[in-house]
């Protein structure tokens, strides 16, 4: 069985090194792709919330296109417009790469839904146990979402509410 290829973008350098090191321990199952052409230090210092976010999105898309990972762990610092733009750009340019967002605090429902609607496959708390990261990578590689069940409930409400062809004629939950 081929290992799942994984790339990591824009986690702080220390955290990123730890994560890469952890994931590489399971080298039969997970292969961490490192972009030797990119200047890690420079990229690491530039956070996605940078004002030059458009150039940064291009940079990330170019790197993902070079590396072609199956799973991309992307630290977007926070779920904001830049994050959604990045997700859209990745979906358009690298549709085979599954993006899991690394978040630094708990995710608000609306923001999580928006990220999923723009192509994210899940969320991982940066401060959580790295064991979760391996589990998430395996699940996402199988096509599953890595999100809390409650968010799945809200996502379903959104699908039923937004899509008239699917709706049973009303909303089913207070979220509507």
């Amino acid at each position, binding site marked *: 069985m081929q290992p799942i290829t994984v790339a990591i973008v824009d986690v702080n350098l220390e955290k990123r090194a730890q994560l890469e090191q952890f994931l590489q321990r399971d080298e039969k199952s997970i292969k961490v792709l490192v972009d030797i052409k990119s200047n890690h230090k420079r990229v690491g210092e530039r956070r996605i919330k940078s004002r030059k976010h458009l150039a940064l999105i291009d940079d990330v898309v170019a790197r993902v296109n070079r590396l072609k990972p199956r799973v991309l762990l992307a630290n977007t610092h926070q779920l904001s417009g830049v994050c959604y733009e990045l997700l859209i750009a990745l*979906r358009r340019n690298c549709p085979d790469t599954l993006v899991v967002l690394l978040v630094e605090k708990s995710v608000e429902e*609306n923001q999580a*839904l928006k990220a*999923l*609607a*723009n*192509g994210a*496959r899940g969320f991982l708390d940066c401060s959580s146990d790295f064991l979760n990261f391996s589990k998430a990578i395996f*699940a996402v590689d*199988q*096509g*599953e*979402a890595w*999100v809390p*069940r*409650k968010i*799945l*409930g*809200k*996502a*379903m409400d*959104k*699908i*039923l509410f*937004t*899509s008239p062809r*699917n*709706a*049973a*004629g*009303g*909303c*089913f*939950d*207070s*979220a509507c």
Partner: protein
Amino acid sequence: MLQGVVLILLASSCKKILARWERGVREFSPVFLTTSLDSLRGKLVNIKPEFLLLDYNLPGLDGQKDILELIKLNVETKVVVFSPALLDEIEWGLFKAGIRGCCRDDIQPEQITFAIKAIQQGELWIRRTLTHYMLQELVDITQEKNRIEQAVNDLLANLTRREYEIARLIGRGESNKRIARQLAITERTVKAHLTEIFRKLDITDRLNLALIMKDTMASQISPQSNTFNAPPYFT
């Protein structure tokens, strides 16, 4: 909500299944039973249960179509289907019809309790392997919604500032008379603007315009600030 007062309806023609379900919902009450589709329809309307535990093999029940009909009878009822292993596409179709959970028909009673509690908390009781259908659907409908919004915005961009202003007021349900008063123009002028708006948007009446504007204005509300983001020429 108190667990003790959850109204649950169990629908199966198999006594064994009903007995197992009853053990699973022991801590909830009141619990009603039904063994036929006709009786189920009546009880859904009359009892208005919070939960319906539905046997997929209930005689006369024809899969997704009938389940959708049952859901329409009382959209407040959370339907949990108990079935043998189904194809992913069929099971996903049931969720798209509006069910909140799907369990294997040999599920243990304790698991039924967990499922009901989870669904009560707003969760879905869904196999993780089905979530990729959900994500794909979410992305697809979002793209479709964005495309429609963009098309509508392109049409609205053809309106003059005054026409857009009147269209927004129509979206808020204002009458011609009130619009005229608000903008200090005559009703006849409002009507003339409306005729031009209908022509530009290729619609025939104010109801369509109101619906378009309502959707447009809703999508222009920023979720963070809850403020209306007007087009550039309004700022």
